């Protein structure tokens, strides 16, 4: 009977109208990718191959792949020991360190790049980008691995000890293997972050995919090569998303025994080890948080010597809010049918709609920007560089977040409530509105807020699609940093960090729950 009691899904066929609405969402999500494919195929095979084998293309691929490998390796090397210290040792102030290791999530990559540049203006190139990307993306490894270490059953290690393993080998043969899926999942998120990141590589002048695509779009004479490169980038990103999903399926805890699990007894660190651990964490914190913050504060103080135009800052903030709000509303409306379908039904068509609607996941913002520029110029010139197309881009990019929120909110409400409302005289729509919708509204609204905050700090798609003269906080920071006006950029950087704090907090909470299924939905460079 357990099966029927815990059933959260309604069985049977989904309503046709809901499927139709979901299909609209899926089509919208596919538009940028499909149009990119159309543009590339128009160029002809010969031209495509010619672009692909060009030394510059190969160099770009090489740069991006190396950057991904270096950053992922560094994140794992830093992340796993850090996670162990925070989760399993008698480190002083563990609670504080747990917060500090999550905080870099609140620093958008281009803000970190700006802050380091403002302090060390000669900092450019591959290794600079690798350093900064490692610092801002290391929480993607640290947090899930910490969660895995904390949730692994200490009884396993004790059994290993009783079977004759020493403490180190017991850890290595029981707890560590359980943390591997979390580490691998985190590493793939880092890879996706690095691959799609535009802000840091562009400001530090590293010719990775995103910067090259943006540059060839700006140069505007070589649209085919931009499109081909974008497609290669999407292919790599899709591979990472696929791998991440596969790994995530295995991250669920393997605990077989039932009953309440004890917390692990932390390993006592000797005096020397304690000192070493504290030095390690302090060093990391200084690099990841200290330098950017000190730089921001110094620039702010300097900036106050040159007059700050508060009106300009306010305008940019309101503009960011306005366009992001339009995008968030659109994303929530599009997400609603898909989220409900995914939570309630598991037919083949529902799976297809859900998968397709998640396309935005594997699409770096630069690619969406590029495709929508092409599309509007070729098909709807009137929409080119309007708020509508910008909101549309935000909706496609952040649709997965809105769907995830709708789906999990809906799944937490038993369909029996809606059915009971039906028997009490409500038609299908009113039954939904008075029960499920009422109960899921907070969850859906939270998803919308997450989209809003994420869209407010979006950079590359905004740069490419915004109406002329429209400036958001992110574009203001970008243009001021480009001309090395670091002082006047500082207020914008601070505003962006404040904005990013909300999504960062949600993300860190999701990632420290070992059995989360939203980690990838919330990755946002």
């Amino acid at each position: 009977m357990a099966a029927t009691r815990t059933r959260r899904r309604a069985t049977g066929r989904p309503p046709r109208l809901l499927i139709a609405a979901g299909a609209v969402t899926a089509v919208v999500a596919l538009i940028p990718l499909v149009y990119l494919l159309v543009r590339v195929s128009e160029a002809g095979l010969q031209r495509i191959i010619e672009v692909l084998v060009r030394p510059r293309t190969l160099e770009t691929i090489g740069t991006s792949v190396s950057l991904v490998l270096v950053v992922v390796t560094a994140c794992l090397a830093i992340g796993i020991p850090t996670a162990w210290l925070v989760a399993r040792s008698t480190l002083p102030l563990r609670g504080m360190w747990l917060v500090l290791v999550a905080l870099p999530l609140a620093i958008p990559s281009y803000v970190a790049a700006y802050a380091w540049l403002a302090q060390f203006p000669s900092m450019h190139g591959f290794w600079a980008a690798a350093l900064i990307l490692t610092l801002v993306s290391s929480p993607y490894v640290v947090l899930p691995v910490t969660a895995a270490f904390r949730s692994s059953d200490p009884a396993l290690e004790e059994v290993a000890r009783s079977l004759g393993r020493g403490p180190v080998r017991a850890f290595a043969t029981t707890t560590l293997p359980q943390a591997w899926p979390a580490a691998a999942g985190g590493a793939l998120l880092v890879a996706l972050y690095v691959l799609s990141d535009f802000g840091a590589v562009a400001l530090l002048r590293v010719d990775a995919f995103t910067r090259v695509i943006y540059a060839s779009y700006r140069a505007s004479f070589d649209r085919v090569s931009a499109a081909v490169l974008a497609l290669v980038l999407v292919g790599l990103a899709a591979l990472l998303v696929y791998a991440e999903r596969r790994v995530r399926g295995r991250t669920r805890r393997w605990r077989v025994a039932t009953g309440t699990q004890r917390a692990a007894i932390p390993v006592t660190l000797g005096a020397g080890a304690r000192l070493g651990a504290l030095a390690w964490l302090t060093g990391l914190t200084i690099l990841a948080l200290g330098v950017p913050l000190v730089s921001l504060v110094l620039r702010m103080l300097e900036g106050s010597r040159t007059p700050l135009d508060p009106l300009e800052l306010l305008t940019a903030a309101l503009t960011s809010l306005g366009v992001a709000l339009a995008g968030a509303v659109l994303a929530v409306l599009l997400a609603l049918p898909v989220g409900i379908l995914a939570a309630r039904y598991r037919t083949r068509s529902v799976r297809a709609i859900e998968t397709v609607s998640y396309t935005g996941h594997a699409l770096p913002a630069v690619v969406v920007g590029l495709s929508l520029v092409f599309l509007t110029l070729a098909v709807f010139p009137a929409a080119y560089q309007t708020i509508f197309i910008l909101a549309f881009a935000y909706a496609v990019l952040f649709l997965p977040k809105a769907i995830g929120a709708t789906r999990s909110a809906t799944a937490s409400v038993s369909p029996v409530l809606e059915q009971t409302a039906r028997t009490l005289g409500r038609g299908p729509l009113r039954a939904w509105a008075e029960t499920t919708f009422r109960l899921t509204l907070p969850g859906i609204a939270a998803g919308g807020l997450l989209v809003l905050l994420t869209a407010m700090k979006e950079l590359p798609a905004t740069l490419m699609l915004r109406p002329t003269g429209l400036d958001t906080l992110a574009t203001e920071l970008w243009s001021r940093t480009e001309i090395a006006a670091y002082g006047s950029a500082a207020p914008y950087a601070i505003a962006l960090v404040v904005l990013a704090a909300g999504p960062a907090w949600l993300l860190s909470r999701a990632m420290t729950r070992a059995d989360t299924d939203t980690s990838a939905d919330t990755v946002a460079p």
Partner: protein
Amino acid sequence: MSSLTAGYGGDAVLSDLDLSVPSGAVAAVLGPSGSGKTTLLRVLAGFLKPTAGTVYFGERLVAGAGPGFPHAFVPPEKRRIGIVPQEGALFPHLDVSANVAFGLPRGAAAGRVAEVLEMVGMSDYAHVRPHELSGGQQQRVALARAMAPRPDVILLDEPFTALDAALRVRLRAEVRELLRGLGTTAILITHDQEEALSTADLVAVLRDGRIVQVGTPLEVYDVPADLGVARFVGDAVELPAVAQGERVTCALGDIPVHASTSLARDGEATVVLRPEQLVLSCPVEPAGPAPLPGAGVVRETSYHGHDSMLRVELADGTAIPVRVPGGTPPPRPGDAVVVSVTGPGRVYPA
């Protein structure tokens, strides 16, 4: 309902099912998990369209083909049914009185809400939120919510399963009283034979999507339609036997069987006894040359306080469970005993 067939995506879960419940009766649909109970409930409530057959509520056709209606289907909101789901499923965002008022027309609700809350003994909780109620209280409110619009049929979907044993027994009795008082037709879906027997006027045993027996609780327990029903409804002691007319011979001797279960053909058969029909006594005299029918040795004793379960090995080597009431110390393993039978058994083909 008649010739009802229903299922999901081409797999028929219910096939060719016939059942009619007299108006005002409390009927239990009893079946193991996977037997199609939930599917039947969903068809009755209107959440699932039957692929064939008809469902009538009294004179009213709610699903299937009828005179003048080739494909009648009344949606759940127009069926005049009340549902008491598993674990209540109260609307968590509404307080108790708003839950009960949900199915009532606005304005006219207040009096009726007070009335039904009074009936289920929840008057003091009108403005409490569902999460502040205990499991039993939630079920009472769910029942009040289902009764409030005066439905033609009340469907109860395993309403007591989530409650602890003592509460379950008490609430079951209360609900039975209440349903009898209302005179509303009620259908109780359950996998618990004790619940079905003690609550319903009529028990329908469902197995693999088919009704295998319909009868009063007494009939279903005393004269099960087949061996499967006998095993499912209550504990059964099965013994190989030789049938001869209305008597059988088995390891416990020559015993009478219910006339309605006697077989058309004499010969090899299985006889089913209920544990309470077995009576244990000490052998009065040392065994003669031929062992007494039912003579055996206690092999295992498990003591439960109010009674004890023994495993008795008979002379021919078969082991049977025997329940002896508590109060006196139960026999120990190794003791010689005699098992005798009171009342008739039921006989089925071997």
